[in-house]
């Protein structure tokens, strides 16, 4: 087991959300926060920050930043909900941008569509004020094991 997974699983068991984000340097740089919603499902949010803006004339959150936020959410969601002691590896990531990301908090929640022996499929949805009006939807494949 990697040191990263060891750290993560210890933090997960104690639900130390802020420390989980702090353990992923780029998630910390983006300013990601996470916690559980009323159903006990993992919820991610990204308070608006000037440094995350792409086009400044609109202004809109950078598309790549939205992608990074969602990919990070998918990985942590998968690690949170698995018992494996091996860190999943991303294989591919596909993202549809539906609305521009405004200068306000961006939320994301994930769903594990399929978890096989070797591969997991995760759906991710991002929204701002209204969940029925998603800013982006994405899906990712992760490799779950390395051949021995």
């Amino acid at each position, binding site marked *: 087991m990697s040191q990263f997974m060891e750290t993560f699983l210890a933090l997960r068991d104690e639900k130390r959300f802020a420390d989980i984000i702090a353990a992923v340097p780029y998630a910390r740089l983006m300013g990601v926060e996470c916690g559980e919603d009323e159903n006990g499902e993992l919820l991610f949010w990204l308070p608006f920050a000037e440094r995350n803006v792409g086009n400044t004339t609109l202004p809109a959150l950078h598309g790549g*930043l939205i992608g990074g936020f969602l990919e990070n959410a998918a990985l942590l969601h998968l690690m949170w909900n698995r018992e494996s002691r091996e860190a999943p590896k991303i294989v591919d990531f596909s993202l549809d941008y539906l609305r521009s990301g405004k200068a306000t908090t961006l939320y994301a929640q994930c769903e594990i569509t399929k978890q096989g022996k070797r591969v997991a499929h995760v759906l991710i949805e991002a929204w701002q004020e209204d969940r029925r009006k998603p800013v982006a939807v994405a899906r990712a494949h992760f490799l779950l094991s390395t051949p021995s």
Partner: protein
Amino acid sequence: MTEQAPANEKLLATAGALFVSFPHCVTLGMQYLGNVGRKPTLKVAWRDDLVGNPASGVLHGGVITSIVDTCSAIAVTAHMDELETIATLDLRIDYLKAATPGKAIYCTAECYRLASQIAFTRAVCYHDSPDDPIAHGVATFMRDSNPKPMLAEGAA
């Protein structure tokens, strides 16, 4: 093979400089290295606060997404006579192999089809050579997505 020249060389240079000046790109330390024909190249130097997995030191996939998105958008402007606002419609990244910790990431993109409303792009990310890629990205962009100009009039 000779590369096709940009539709507007000055516009491409201006767009390249403009797109990497956006706050998120500055946060990542993104640099516009120039273009060969209509293919721009960007660079992000390895930095410890861009890491995804601290145990391995490998850069976060989100950094790849950002460099692909930005470089692909610049590639679209290589086909334009005048700058129009474009918006990413969708983006797919294939992670071909893990990035090497400590090494800078380069991205070269091209717009292989500019239709009246949509631009289609592909990009590769690599350390040393585009022939040895670490990630591949395809994207589509909506043209003329916002009437608000991105540049002051007469800037390119």
